[in-house]
């Protein structure tokens, strides 16, 4: 599903964001990628989305080797990923329905299929009745659920959530996380990138710790209490 092999990323100017990162996330897993801001999480995400390219090593996503991917294949690689962003990235002038339909329209899906699929996905995230609302009329939690619906609309094998609870109330965070868990239960791989240690701790899932551009720990189920603790475990 997702594999990093000895990945190094150096930005122009010499800033080393990731250093010799190797990891593998298999089909059907639920994984937290945990780290402080500046630890290298964003770069990790950018490499998966092919927003940036690795300086060394290779990144493989859904059988696409991103170090050798052709430009014309990038859109198709991205269609195999559903992405939920911290800032939702919804278009404020479009209704909830259109925001979700947008993802299908821009991938050239026939309108007939869009009319069937969008209400179904909005139902999955519990927002069927808000289809005609515009993002500014919705709460943060609701907007994030619309964003999740958009990520789900293509039935991607992987959902990647970048700080999905960063901009919403704590009680609503649980709702989002429960939705992601439910999605994972039907076989979808879920990767949640976050700096919230408590959130990861609550769900007892595999957690990959990133610090100073390196994977310092990769635990199954038992979340560690602090990066220093992680460092100890890593030893």
């Amino acid at each position, binding site marked *: 599903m997702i594999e990093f092999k000895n990945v190094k990323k150096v930005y122009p100017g010499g800033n080393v964001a990731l250093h010799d990162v190797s990891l593998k996330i298999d089909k059907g897993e639920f994984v937290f990628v945990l780290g402080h801001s500046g630890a290298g999480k964003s770069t990790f995400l950018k490499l998966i*989305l092919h*927003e940036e390219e690795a300086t060394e090593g290779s990144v493989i996503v859904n059988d696409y080797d991103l170090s050798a991917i052709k*430009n*014309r294949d990038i*859109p*198709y*690689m*991205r*269609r195999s990923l559903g*992405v939920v962003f911290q800032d939702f*990235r919804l*278009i404020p002038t479009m209704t909830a329905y259109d925001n979700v339909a*947008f*993802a299908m*329209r*821009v*991938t*050239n899906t*026939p*309108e*007939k299929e869009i009319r069937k699929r969008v209400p179904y996905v909005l139902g999955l995230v519990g927002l069927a009745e808000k289809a005609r609302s515009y993002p500014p009329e919705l709460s943060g939690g609701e907007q994030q659920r619309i964003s999740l619906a*958009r990520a789900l609309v*293509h039935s991607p094998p992987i959902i990647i959530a970048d700080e999905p609870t960063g901009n919403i109330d704590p009680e609503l965070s649980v709702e989002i996380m429960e939705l992601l868990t439910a999605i994972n239960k039907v076989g979808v791989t879920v990767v949640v990138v976050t700096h919230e240690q408590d959130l990861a701790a609550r769900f007892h899932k595999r957690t990959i710790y990133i610090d100073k551009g390196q994977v310092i720990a990769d635990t199954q189920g038992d979340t560690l209490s602090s990066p220093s603790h992680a460092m100890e475990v890593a030893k």
Partner: protein
Amino acid sequence: MNLSGLKYLSRQGVHNLVKNRLMSVASVGVLTACLVITGIAALLSANVASFVDYLGAQNKVIVYLQLDATEEQAQAAYAEVKQIPNITEIKYTSKEDALNQTKEWISGYDSGAYAGVLDGYEGENNPLYASFAVTVTDLTQISTTVSQLSKVTSVDFVDSPSELASTLVALKQTVMVAGWGLVAVLALVAVVVISNTIRLTVFARRKEINIMKFVGATNSFIRMPFWIEGTLIGAISAVLAFGVVSGAYVWVLKLASTSGISWLQSIYFTFLPYNAVWMYLLGGFVGAGIVLGGIGSCLSIRKYLKV
């Protein structure tokens, strides 16, 4: 691309154009002005070229045969001249015809005071040359043609308007170069103006473009509405420019034929008729408008596709 996708993209393109109407109107205005000037330059240079061709056709190369050339030799020379390329028309004047024409001219001169002065020069005493008046197709090749004509058997010498020909050729070339130079500059202006207009739309929708990239839209799909916006600006400008330029040309033609200004009337028949130019104008404008609009829009979106 399926039908619903195409419908969606076209709607987006028209939506951009309307939402951005102030800049759209400004772009249409500038592009129309550029196309009008280009059209006028093109018509002017085409008419100058036609006028130069007309003048060129009036100036014939005269091939003089040797004084003692017989009728048979003249016929053989005629056959040889016919083989030479770049010649459209050959008119033969025999020694007798030349003498008769000269006599006629002299008898009309000074109320016939010198009529009869050439009597006695007929037959073997005829001092005039038999000749071919030859019309050259391409004036730029005139020196080659003249040297070929000089080599024809029984030809004594060739008289050609070479200097005039080179002046006309230079004039035609200058007009063409100036015309194309103007077209190139105006095309550049048009591309910059259109790309700036569309840059505004692209900037306003950069967030949308970013989302499109992450949900897996192809670059060509993202580019399409902006391309439609650009080509629409181009097409609207083309139609407007066509209206202005063809209206003006018809007016000039009418003025030339009815104004009573003698020099204008004397060159009226060298003007290209409207029927011969309108389809080139329309085709050129629509083609240029669409191409310039398309290039302008592609330039403005390039930056945002690099994600």
